């Protein structure tokens, strides 16, 4: 005000006001506490109550955690060692560590195989998650499912090799014919893959090749957190492409494709996952011919995958709907065909919009893998509720076990959530 004259309207600045630091009472921790914790009387009361609650919770749990016993053969011994004091029996975790991670039937001398598969998972996932990494690692990502299968299930190396050969043949046929027509390429690829698998299937069992065979493990012997991770990773990576295909199919101008997708999505979304799992474990065998034995793990993977694919389809459809029509028109007007427009223009933007929703479904899916415990698969929760709590040594240890399970799931889910936030920031190009 000092350099304006209140009497006159006209004003010309002659001297610039130099920038100055804020006064000391406008910064610093005291100021922050005053502004944020004790701004008004009501605010102060709430702060005090909140501090009290935090104190009560921590004063109960911290001694329990820090007083914990990590080395004891059974609950009874642990209680004796605690001698009436409050304290956790974490010994159950150390004693049953392998069971919690691998289940109780996986051969203990083979633990290194799933552990190695888990370590390699990070290498395989890295180029997909972080696209600044060299693209050549993607070759390993492509090979990873076959490597992981061989490591976890063992058996003849020809099984994963044959599966790989089928995919390679299918991919080759697709590359060859897709230029002529997408349908020819697509169905030709499926036919080629099935052909390779059928021919290979005839050759391999007849010759009984044992070369390159590792000790084989049955699907019903899988368990523990390993089973949750396997189901989670497999189902998320399968349901994302299927979900995108369903979302595009639902928008298709071809009525048959459109209605197949609509009916599929609406039906699957309308059914509880647990029903689908019971179908997988009990009912599916009625529909297959008696001699066919479709692996229980595979049946569960199929059910969880179609379940979450239906949800992802709706999330992606939301992303597609959020794009302005002008983007489709611009792509069309430049002469891009449907596949190019979708791949280069529409999906990159629609998926970016859908990231929070997709992550939501993925986190939910990962936690839902614990539902397989109700169809007597011994995943982590199945292990806790079954073999561990039913044993004479550890009957009655609930808090420690379930807190540990919660912690493991939290670490994975929080990691997914942090990754998705990083991804959103990384992809933000509109308001740079």
């Amino acid at each position, binding site marked *: 005000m000092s350099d304006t004259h209140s009497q006159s309207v006209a004003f010309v600045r002659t001297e610039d006001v130099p920038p100055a630091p804020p006064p000391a009472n406008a910064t610093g921790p005291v100021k922050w506490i005053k502004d944020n914790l004790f701004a008004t009387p009501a605010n102060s009361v709430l702060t005090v109550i909140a501090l009290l609650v935090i104190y009560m919770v921590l004063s109960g749990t911290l001694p329990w955690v820090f007083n914990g016993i990590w080395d004891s053969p059974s609950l009874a011994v642990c209680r004796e060692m605690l001698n009436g004091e409050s304290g956790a029996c974490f010994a159950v975790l150390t004693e049953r560590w392998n069971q919690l991670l691998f289940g109780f039937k996986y051969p203990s001398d083979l633990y290194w195989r799933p552990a190695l598969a888990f370590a390699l998972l990070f290498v395989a996932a890295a180029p997909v998650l972080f696209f600044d990494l060299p693209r050549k690692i993607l070759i390993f990502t492509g090979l990873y499912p076959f490597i992981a299968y061989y490591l976890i299930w063992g058996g003849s190396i020809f099984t994963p090799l044959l599966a790989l050969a089928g995919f390679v043949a299918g991919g080759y046929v697709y590359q060859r014919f897709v230029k002529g027509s997408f349908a020819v390429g697509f169905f030709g690829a499926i036919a080629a893959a099935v052909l390779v698998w059928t021919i290979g299937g005839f050759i391999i069992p007849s010759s009984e090749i044992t070369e390159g065979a590792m000790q084989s493990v049955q699907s019903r012997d899988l368990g523990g957190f390993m089973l949750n991770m396997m189901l989670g990773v497999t189902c998320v990576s399968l349901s994302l492409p299927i979900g995108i295909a369903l979302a595009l199919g639902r928008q298709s101008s071809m009525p048959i494709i459109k209605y197949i997708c609509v009916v599929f999505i609406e039906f699957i979304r309308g059914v509880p996952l647990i029903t689908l799992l019971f179908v997988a474990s009990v009912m599916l065998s009625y529909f297959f011919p008696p001699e066919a034995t479709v692996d229980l793990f595979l049946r569960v993977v199929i059910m969880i995958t179609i379940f979450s694919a239906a949800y992802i389809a709706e999330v992606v459809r939301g992303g597609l709907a959020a794009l*302005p029509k*002008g*983007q489709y*028109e*611009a792509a*069309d*007007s*430049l*002469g*891009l*065909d449907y596949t*190019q427009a979708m791949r*280069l*223009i529409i999906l*990159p*933007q629609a998926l*970016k919009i859908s990231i929070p929703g997709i992550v939501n479904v993925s986190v939910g899916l990962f936690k839902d893998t614990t539902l397989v415990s109700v169809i007597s698969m011994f995943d982590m929760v199945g292990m806790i509720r079954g073999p561990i709590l039913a044993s004479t040594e550890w009957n009655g240890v609930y808090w420690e076990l379930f807190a540990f399970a919660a912690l493991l799931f939290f670490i994975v889910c929080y990691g997914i959530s942090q990754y998705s936030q990083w991804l959103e920031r990384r*992809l933000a*190009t*509109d*308001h*740079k």
Partner: protein
Amino acid sequence: MADTAQMQVSDEVAITIQNMNKWYGTFHVLRNIDLTVNRGERIVVCGPSGSGKSTLIRCINALEEHQQGSIEVDGTLLSSDLKNIDKIRSEVGMCFQHFNLFPHLSILDNLTLAPIWVRKTPKKEAEEVAMHYLEKVKIPDQANKFPGQLSGGQQQRVAIARSLCMKPRIMLFDEPTSALDPEMIKEVLDTMIELAEEGMTMICVTHEMGFARQVANRVIFMDAGQIVEQNEPEEFFNNPKSERTQLFLSQILGH
């Protein structure tokens, strides 16, 4: 300036529209449209909103489907055959009111995308062409930015450059300056004038009557889905024949 209007128009036909009709549901949006555009012509289409002028030019590159009559672009008859449609679209450039740049791609990628994927141009060559056109619209220094970082006028010039990278023989403009601030309209119009001077065949839906006077060799007035009047710009503005044209011109030039 006025000499642009006397630029050569060849006898070669670029677009023929014969007796074309289009309906939205039961609404008859385009009625008996007959229009022949010669190569090198610069046509301005004007008319009140809802008169079907945007729909008309969107029919030319099949963004909208017409139900009756024929459209022939560069000797290719527009039918439901996807191959024909893609062929015509890659020959006809289009600029939109809201630019419709691809926000997830850099300016350079916006320009090179279609040449690389549709024309199968090598990446390096496509980038050289893109830089050439960015220099032409006077924003080569923005090549590595994203569309969201540019002003509206810059975005529209990028959109024009993006169409030009496909080396189109015909350019369609759908109200290219309607979403712009007044001071940005000029920079876009200058780019369009330059394009016209180079002999590009252009059909332009616009309310910029100054642009029409200066550049167009024919002005078309549409109302209620029909071509009501067309004439050379001098005659059209100074001596409109139809009452509806007179009313329209008095409304937009009145203030």
